[in-house]
């Protein structure tokens, strides 16, 4: 089927099989491997991207369902700069170890931060949907909190 959408500001047109997951479409068709694939059933949060602004799990969406949508992945965060303020904060706080969960967390945190100034509890609640097996959650909360307070 013919799919047309915008990914990180770029118009994309591709023929896809209906069963192709958005996560696989981004990684294998567009080479956007910053979106990571963990559990493939919506539990780990590693594959989180934004569709029309909403942070969602790309392993639970078929690419064909994003017809005409605007998709934003971790590759778009820095947008010409070396790092975005949120990415800078992650670096400063050592908020990543292996980095597998990081891109999903960044995309979810970006949405949370756009909605207002989250409390520490709200940040923790958000992170309950993102599994970090290095278990380095405290610095992640610190980094997001710092940007929230900035």
């Amino acid at each position, binding site marked *: *089927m013919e799919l047309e959408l915008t990914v990180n500001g770029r118009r994309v047109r591709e023929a896809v*099989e*209906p*069963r192709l*997951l958005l996560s*696989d479409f981004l990684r294998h068709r567009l080479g956007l491997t910053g979106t990571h694939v963990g559990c*493939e*059933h*919506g539990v780990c*949060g590693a594959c*989180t991207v934004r*569709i029309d602004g*909403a*942070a*969602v*799990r790309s*392993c*639970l*969406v*078929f690419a*064909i*369902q994003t*017809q005409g949508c605007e998709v934003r992945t971790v590759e778009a965060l820095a947008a010409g700069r070396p790092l975005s303020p949120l990415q800078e904060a992650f670096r400063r706080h050592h908020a990543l170890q292996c980095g597998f969960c990081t891109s999903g967390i960044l995309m*979810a945190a970006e*949405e*949370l931060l756009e909605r207002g100034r989250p409390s520490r509890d709200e940040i923790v*609640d*958000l992170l*309950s*949907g*993102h599994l970090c097996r290095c278990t380095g959650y405290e610095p992640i909360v610190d980094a997001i909190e710092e940007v929230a307070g900035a």
Partner: protein
Amino acid sequence: MKPPAFEYFAARSLDEALAALAEGGEDAKPIAGGQSLVPALNMRLVRPTRLVDIGRAGLNGIVRENGCLRVGATTTQRTLERSDDCPPLVRQALSHIGHVGTRNRGTVGGSIAHADGAAELCLCLVALGGTVVTDRREIPARAFFVTHYTTVLAAGELVTATLWPDRDQPAVFEELALRAGDYALSMVAVSGATVTVGAVTERPTVLGEVGDLLAGEPASEELAREAGALAASLVDPPGHAHASPAYLKHLTGVLVERALRKAWSSS
């Protein structure tokens, strides 16, 4: 973890959706947010031959009408959660459903039609005495759920909306899950004197005997304890790897007690 092949049809109206479902026969399934269906597809637990996407069929939106809130089937859980009109009980329950990322896409109608025995929205709709609206009829929520993943929906019948009646009694939702966002071990909704339990039953169940005990009685610590003990005696969960039947019964009693105390202290 890749889904089997299927045919995909994006419906742009209810009529298109119904026609595509009818044409696809019993192996056609509607998909809305897909937050339960896509994991099941990825794990190949289900193999529909055709998916009819109703996400853009004009079935979303929240309107207030005749003493209730009408929530279009494809309204996302997140939209309802952030709506000023969201019933207080539902708002409490929504925060326990998956995570922000799944609520951003998961729909209210999808959760109801999926009818997981541990689904918070199904419990709330039963607790509030709401209604399921389909393309052909209105079904009281208390007559809608049959057992796990099973409802009275006929083949090809589509949930188009749910009706959530306004209740001016204090309402409290309580659940215990092993991890945030996981399925609850047990959950309880208290709305006035109506006590409804889920996850420990095969469908959301109003505990009428607890309601009878509470009716007209002044709130007290003893009454809460008595109601909790009665609730625990009325459920008969099978138990699983994480919790024994005795634990689940006890837990349900504790949640009922806790919910009643909260409801009374807020009234």
